[in-house]
């Protein structure tokens, strides 16, 4: 079963709304469904690390809320909401190609192509940026950079790594812009990409989204 990128975007946006309108049990059910889906798609170390990281972050959010005097149930529900919202994005990214998401954003939501392209460009250049940071760190270490000392000292000394790294990134972005110009980047970029099919499953999922998103209305109508 493969959903269209457009459907995934709608579902993701809807989930972020549902966490505020649906009751606690429903939100908890969504969380379970998300975890099952993510583990079904990819039971890798990276996926476990991503889920674990989000779990830790949620825990910190809950702690912060408790520290600021929120009641336990409010803090827990707040953390749950945040976790479900972020997992919704993780589900979308794990199941859909970023290029399809960008295309859907341009075609269906009329996002300017430049912004949509930023999604793919960001993903494309993350590994390069990490590689550059290692090279720059090594080069500066050879010239005497050291990350010893207290936090402030380490932060200040890190400037010698950040500065060349940023310069390299800027130079690369200029080349990228030139390359895109040479290759005719513009309105046609996403228009001519192969179209993804919109199946009956997409229609069914979108119908379910409509039903769940109008939950307060149904609740009032049915008098429960």
């Amino acid at each position, binding site marked *: 079963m493969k959903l269209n990128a457009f459907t995934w975007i709608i579902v993701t946006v809807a989930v972020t709304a549902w966490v505020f309108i649906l009751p606690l049990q429903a939100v908890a059910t969504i969380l379970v469904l998300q975890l099952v889906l993510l583990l079904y798609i990819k039971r890798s170390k990276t996926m476990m690390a991503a889920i674990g990281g989000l779990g830790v972050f949620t825990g910190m959010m809950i702690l912060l809320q408790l520290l600021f005097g929120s009641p336990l149930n409010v803090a827990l529900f707040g953390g749950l909401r945040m976790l479900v919202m972020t997992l919704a994005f993780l589900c979308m990214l794990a199941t859909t190609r970023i*290029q399809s998401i960008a295309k859907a954003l341009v075609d269906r939501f009329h996002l300017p192509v430049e912004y949509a392209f930023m999604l793919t460009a960001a993903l494309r250049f993350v590994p390069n940026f990490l590689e550059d940071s290692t090279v720059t760190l090594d080069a500066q270490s050879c010239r005497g950079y050291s990350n010893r000392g207290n936090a402030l000292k380490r932060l200040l000394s890190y400037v010698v790594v950040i500065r060349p790294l940023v310069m390299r990134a800027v130079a690369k972005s200029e080349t990228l812009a030139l390359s895109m110009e*040479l290759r005719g980047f513009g309105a046609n970029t996403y228009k001519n990409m192969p179209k993804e099919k919109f199946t009956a499953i997409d229609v069914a999922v979108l119908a379910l989204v409509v039903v769940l998103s109008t939950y307060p209305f149904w609740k009032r109508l049915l008098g429960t």
Partner: protein
Amino acid sequence: MNPVVSVTEFYFKYLRSGLVLKNINLEIEKGSFTVIIGPSGAGKTTLCKAITGIVPYYTGGDYAGDVKVLGETTKGKKVSDLAMKVGLMLEDYESQLVSLTAGEEVAFSLLNHGFPPDEAEERTRRALEDVGLPGRENYQLDELSGGQRQRLALASLLAVHPEVIVLDEPVSAMDPDGGESLYKLLGKIREEYGTTFIVVEHRVEFVLPYMTNLIAVKNGEIAGQGTCEEVVSRIYEDTELRPLLPDLWQIKRGLEISTGQRFRLWRSTEEAAEELRMKGFGKGVRA
């Protein structure tokens, strides 16, 4: 002569810089393999950018003169439209790759220029085959080695079938085997499609078997241009440009001057050894 590129009295300066190119007059013949040599900062890359319309229409700057590609002036043309006729591979090929997979990378230009998806797919498959990356459409870029990524950048140029391909130091990051194999590939493409190649290269040894023409640039000016046979002697006389010639040609000119004999323009050490043996230069001469 049937020039595909002609540059006439071209002068150029970037914003807030001195003249980078001065009185450039050159013609590139259809189907030729031209190598541009020159010291660092001589203006080789700027010349390549002028041929592809990037200079001055993308970078800005002041210019005089005219550049014609396939008989049409580059004035007022969009860089992307010119790229259909003259493709450019920049020295920093890594940053030139914009997509996540090899197939998308090659198809990027095609889709941007309005090719239908089916044709784009077919051209992508063909271009990847041509550069020795068959069936790699779904490979992520980080699954490819540096040399393969360089070939991929070339494939994305080849897919749109430009008549002229300009390459700025295409083997700068390659080992000798990789460099030789890339130029072998370019030679094959030239034979197969009749593509005109213009290459900026410091390690001319790699291009020896394929190059037909040579342009030497010094201080923003053309110091020599023509077929290799025509210009080698003139370039050799310039002590600053001499070390940029391949070792074999430096030896050839040195021998010609010291012995008064004429030699062929050697394309390989084997060829040199054979001619030297034939002319009686000692029994011990070997390639």
